[in-house]
């Protein structure tokens, strides 16, 4: 046992304690467990939304991308900021509609708007397929963190099992309440650690920011901007836009908006959350310090950049503090994803098939699905392979395919019916799967000129839109005729 491991373990214990405490005095029905009784104020909604966005991906992945790719990493700073801008207008009508109808999940929204439980099932399936790799990523991060903090005493595999067990217990006992309170603890932690490292490291090693960036520019000219080919400005703009549209289409993000007490929370957060994005600036800086201090990491190992540079710079107890923060960045989003995934399975896939199922029975079933989903994800995590990276890339592009029919459903008169919506989603998701699994990208056609750097997800969205419009044209006369009869 060393100091790092003890501090990291204490973070686990504190998270569990907070989760148990948050439960006390509340009946955990479906509404409390999944959407916190719709009673969260601006501050808690802020924490939840910020909480599920600052994941181990930000912590390890963000610094890893800055380390490995340089300039292209900047898109992480941008896409959520643009997502928040749209949230100002998109979230309040969704919240009002969800409250009127007593909705719990994202597929509930689609099913109600399009009056079709089958469409709800399709949306739920898309969501679950997108969520699994996201959760696997959290478990992988947890494995890296605990193994590093123990200085190798605990193997990554054992760490993944310990983490998975902790998340399961935590989610089953406290539901979304535990997530909000642990999110508070986590956000204090990540703010402190990332801002401290982002200021201390460059001054310690280089004497300042400009000196550090100059050292990188001397070593790798142009690394801190976008390359002319590949991840060019065209790639940057299309990727940022695509991921911004998808930002609120993730089932767990969509689900967290139901927890608000009043829609003004979202409008306030639309102004506050962009500032919070600046944390990413410090995350990038940590990755950039590592470019000079711990060069040579390649492939998936770039995610170790933050820890490698910390191990070189700090005593074990401080590595423990970093590890503790890392554990929380995996637990909070992990628990949100689990709650969303388990609720999706119980409420939107099983429930429509078994009419007459009560809320209480659905809540019980959702809690049974939690360990099932954990086991599936632990399996994926330990079996490893590149497939999961492909799945994650697909996940982002999958959820964006829900955006067109989501947007039209907010219009006073939705021009689409359920068949057009389903056709569009299926076409878009199919295109994403084909292009990702087939390794197809537009760069194969040089005659496209600068357009060849367009993110291939744009192609899927275009196919989605074309099929949606065609299907709407095809079905609308039928619908009108039926209405006239």
């Amino acid at each position, binding site marked *: 046992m060393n100091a790092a491991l003890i501090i990291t373990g204490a973070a686990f214990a504190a998270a569990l304690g907070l989760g148990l405490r948050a439960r006390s005095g509340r009946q955990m029905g479906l509404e409390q467990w999944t959407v916190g009784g719709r009673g969260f104020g601006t501050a808690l909604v802020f924490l939840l939304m910020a909480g599920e966005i600052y994941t181990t991906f930000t912590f390890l992945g963000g610094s890893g991308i800055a380390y490995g790719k340089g*300039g292209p990493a*900047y898109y992480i*700073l*941008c896409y959520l*900021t*643009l997502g*928040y*801008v749209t949230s*100002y207008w998109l979230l309040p009508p969704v919240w009002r509609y969800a409250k009127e109808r007593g909705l719990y999940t994202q597929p509930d929204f689609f099913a109600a708007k399009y009056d079709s439980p089958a469409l709800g099932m399709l949306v739920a399936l898309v969501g679950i397929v997108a969520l699994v790799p996201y959760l696997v990523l959290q478990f992988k991060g947890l494995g890296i963190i605990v193994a590093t903090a123990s200085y190798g005493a605990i193997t990554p595999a054992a760490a993944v099992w310990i983490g998975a067990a902790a998340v399961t217990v935590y989610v089953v006992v406290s539901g979304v309440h535990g997530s909000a309170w642990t999110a508070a603890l986590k956000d204090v932690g990540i703010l402190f650690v990332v801002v401290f490292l982002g200021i201390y490291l460059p001054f310690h090693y280089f004497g*300042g*920011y*400009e000196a550090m*960036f*100059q050292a990188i*520019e001397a070593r790798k*000219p*142009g*690394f*801190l*901007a*976008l390359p002319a080919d590949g991840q060019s*400005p065209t790639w*940057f*703009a299309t990727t*940022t*836009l695509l991921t911004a549209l998808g930002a609120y289409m993730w089932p767990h993000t969509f689900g967290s908006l139901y927890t608000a007490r*009043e*829609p*003004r929370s979202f*409008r*306030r957060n*639309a*102004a*506050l959350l*962009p*500032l919070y*994005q*600046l944390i990413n*600036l410090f995350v*990038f800086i940590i990755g950039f310090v590592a470019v000079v201090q711990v060069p040579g990491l390649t492939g998936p190992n770039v995610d170790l950049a933050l820890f490698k540079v910390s191990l070189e710079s700090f005593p074990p107890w401080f590595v423990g503090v970093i590890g503790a923060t890392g554990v929380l960045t995996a637990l909070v989003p992990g628990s949100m994803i689990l709650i969303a995934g388990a609720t999706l399975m119980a409420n939107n896939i099983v429930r429509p098939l078994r009419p007459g199922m009560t809320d209480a029975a659905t809540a019980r079933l959702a809690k049974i699905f939690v360990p099932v989903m954990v086991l599936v994800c632990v399996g994926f995590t330990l079996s490893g392979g590149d497939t999961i990276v492909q799945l994650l890339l697909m996940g982002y592009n999958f959820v964006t395919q829900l955006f067109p029919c989501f947007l039209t459903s907010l219009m006073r008169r939705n021009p689409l019916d359920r068949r057009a919506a389903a056709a569009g989603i299926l076409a878009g998701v199919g295109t994403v799967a084909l292009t990702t699994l087939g390794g197809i990208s537009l760069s194969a056609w040089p005659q496209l000129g600068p357009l060849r750097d367009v993110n291939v997800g744009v192609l899927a969205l275009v196919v989605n839109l074309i099929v949606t419009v065609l299907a709407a044209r095809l079905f609308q006369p039928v619908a009108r005729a039926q209405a006239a009869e």
Partner: protein
Amino acid sequence: MRHLRWLAALPFLGMLGGPFVLNRVEPFILGLPLLLAWLVFCVVLTSALMALIYFTDPENREPEGER
């Protein structure tokens, strides 16, 4: 003051269009490479614009409750 909401288009213009014009490392602005400094400026501007939109939006003037 509802026309102020169109200011929300500026962050999109700045972040999606800016990299085409400002894709350079030097000069360093406040110690940051030019492109990164521009994007950070855009993020801060977004927050300020959304705050302005929030405070001038009549929807937010009504008392707390069901709106």
